[in-house]
């Protein structure tokens, strides 16, 4: 038994070595290739999000396989939804695979862990759906294809105000950086709109994984709000809305783009009807040429509706390719960075993309609502 085992072990490592060597030989042969690194959580807690984004990047690579006459090769690496791994894998992509641009990742904290590495090595990175403002702050080499938490919070505050809400309650998932960011900017914007600090009547917290919200909801119901803003994870949020209806709290619920999953509707059922959320992509507002191409290709490849994550990841790839094209080089990563920083009115799936001085995408937000068990397009908020 031991003999068989040692043979097995030895062969595992031998294959490992072989695979390693094989890769290097291939590199030497092809100099007409530009490598783009993709780092996404493909295993671990965030694997679902990572997988959706990977689809978008692969699709974009299929439709735009070349830049400046060179073939684009994606080097896909898994960061295991772990910060230490995210940092190591970013270093590996840069040092071992010699990528010139990095795309990724789902999850702001993972992106932040890689932030120092890309900065040190002067390799531009384009975030897909990492919305925490800190990702690009004080880092010239990190960009992103999505809008940031402050913008999304502000959009929802405007939407609530426009629809007649004057008194709102906020219920945030306090252990989620995304929810905390949204809630904070929602509150700021809403107070500004109404001119009264009392317009936000309550800010309640819950933890990821909580199941019982009756205490929070009873308290809020007593204060009689016009609407409730509840950014957070989709399962918890759906449960929250369900329990609110049971307690007779029949006011509109507003949330962020994390709600846009089938699970939200599955868990919430009838109770989440009328809940509205902000997101980056919708079929009906997908008016650009690129969006049509994307939709066709997506339906052909994966069937069903593409999610906003997939669209954003597709956009991140387009931004990278556009940057390389305008830099006119596939080797000088600093020039590529400068070109990416100047991205302006680039036609992408989620509308025209322009990057601001922080490297954040300025783009319109879309507001959707749940109707008949589906997410329906409701409104469109452009950037002022």
């Amino acid at each position, binding site marked *: 038994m031991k003999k068989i085992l040692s043979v097995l072990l030895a062969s595992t490592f031998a294959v490992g070595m072989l695979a390693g060597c094989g890769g290097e030989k291939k590199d030497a042969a092809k100099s007409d290739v530009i490598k783009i690194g993709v780092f996404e959580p493909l295993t671990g807690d965030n694997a679902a999000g990572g997988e959706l984004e990977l689809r978008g990047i692969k699709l974009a690579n299929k439709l735009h396989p070349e830049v400046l006459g060179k073939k684009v090769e994606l080097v896909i690496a898994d960061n295991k939804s772990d910060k230490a791994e995210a940092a190591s894998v970013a270093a590996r992509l840069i040092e071992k695979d010699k990528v010139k641009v990095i795309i990724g990742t789902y999850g702001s904290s993972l992106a932040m862990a890689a932030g120092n*590495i890309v900065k040190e090595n002067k390799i531009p990175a384009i975030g897909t759906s990492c919305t*925490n403002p800190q990702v690009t*702050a004080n880092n010239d080499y990190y960009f992103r294809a999505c809008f940031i938490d402050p913008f999304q919070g502000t959009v929802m505050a405007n939407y609530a105000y426009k629809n007649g809400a004057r008194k709102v309650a906020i219920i945030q998932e306090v252990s989620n950086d995304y929810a905390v960011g949204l809630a904070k900017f929602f509150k700021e914007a809403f107070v500004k709109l109404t001119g009264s600090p009392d317009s936000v009547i309550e800010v309640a917290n819950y933890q990821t994984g909580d199941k019982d919200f009756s205490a929070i909801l009873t308290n809020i119901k007593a204060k009689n709000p016009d609407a409730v803003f509840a950014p957070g994870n989709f399962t918890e949020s759906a449960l929250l809305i369900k329990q609110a209806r049971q307690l007779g709290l029949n006011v509109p619920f507003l949330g962020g783009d994390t709600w846009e999953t089938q699970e939200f509707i599955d868990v919430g059922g009838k109770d989440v009807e009328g809940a509205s959320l902000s997101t980056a992509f919708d079929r009906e507002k997908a008016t650009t040429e690129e969006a049509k191409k994307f939709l066709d290709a997506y339906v052909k490849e994966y069937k069903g509706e593409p999610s906003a994550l997939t669209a954003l990841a597709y956009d991140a790839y387009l931004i990278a390719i556009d940057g390389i094209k305008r830099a006119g080089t596939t080797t000088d990563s600093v020039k590529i960075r400068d070109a990416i920083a100047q991205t302006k009115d680039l036609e992408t799936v989620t509308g025209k993309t322009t990057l601001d001085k922080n490297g954040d995408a300025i783009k319109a937000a879309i507001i959707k609502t749940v109707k008949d068990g589906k997410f329906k397009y409701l409104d469109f908020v452009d950037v002022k």
Partner: protein
Amino acid sequence: MANKKNLILTILLLIGCFALAWYVNFETDSYIRRVVNLCMVYAIIGLSMNLTNGFTGQFSLGQAGFMAIGAYVVGIFTVPVALRPAVFYAAPMNPLIADIYMPLWLALIVGGLLAALVAFLIGTPVLRLRGDYLAVATLGFSEIIRIVITNAQTITNGALGIKDIPPLNDVRYIFVFTAVIFIFITALINSSYGRAFKAIREDEIAAEAMGIDLFKHKCLAFMISAFFAGIGGGLYGALLGTVDPKNFLFTLTYNFLLIIVLGGMGSITGSMIGAVLVTAGLEFLRVFDEPLDLFGMAIPLFRPGFRMVIFSVLLMVLVLFWRHGIMGTREFTWDKFIAFCKNPFGFFGRKGARKA
């Protein structure tokens, strides 16, 4: 005479390792540097966990909590004051601490001391428990720390986490910490305290009968372990340049449990070997995540995530055949090493013969 020779050899090895650290720092790329750094940081935390779990025999799962304390002290105090408003963009930092800046080494030690203090506070009631109950209590404690950090928005920036910790990527710096901690723990284990720890592990009642103050020694081991976990956590935070509460979920503790079980509960060198195997091994296995063309055919198994499957299989094999980890409670010694060098085949043969 033999002792002196061994001491000289150990010193030579440390100097050699330091030279290697120097080489790694200047001659290799940032990827290798990062993996080496991570190995050393994980070794520190593995060692600290081994002190309570392996040597004193107290099954504690609070390591993630102690790491969080160390990492957050580094995160809060080493970010340059000018950058702090940008980091604390959601709620301004508490004015009491907003202007306090510490160099990294000081923040590491403060973090370690704070972790030790917290260990004392929770150790006093909790260490009276044994076995599974202690594990549950310490696990709960580490979750409490994480939730406190999540909710103390003006001190820790809550769920948003802290960014812009000055990056630490100097292999020598971390090596010095690792070496000092390694030497300290070796000396501790070989002192009368260390022997008391081991006596407690073997049989608490017998140890007490021999006049060992159970509570004092358990508490001491727990505090020292927390102190080094705090330092390790601080280095971990500085290495990543960012900390957030989700880093320190209780699953992080299992990383280190894996390291010490793999290396051998109750073996210092085992923890070091375990840390290197788990960290560098996972990186080595990354080749299985990359697509592989064999004779022009792409093998579909080779896709991201496959390495984790291989890693799990390897772990199972290891645990099945080396039930006490690679080193068990044994240590690497020069005498054995020399015996091995003189007669590599006979060395294993002898061991087999002894087992039978």
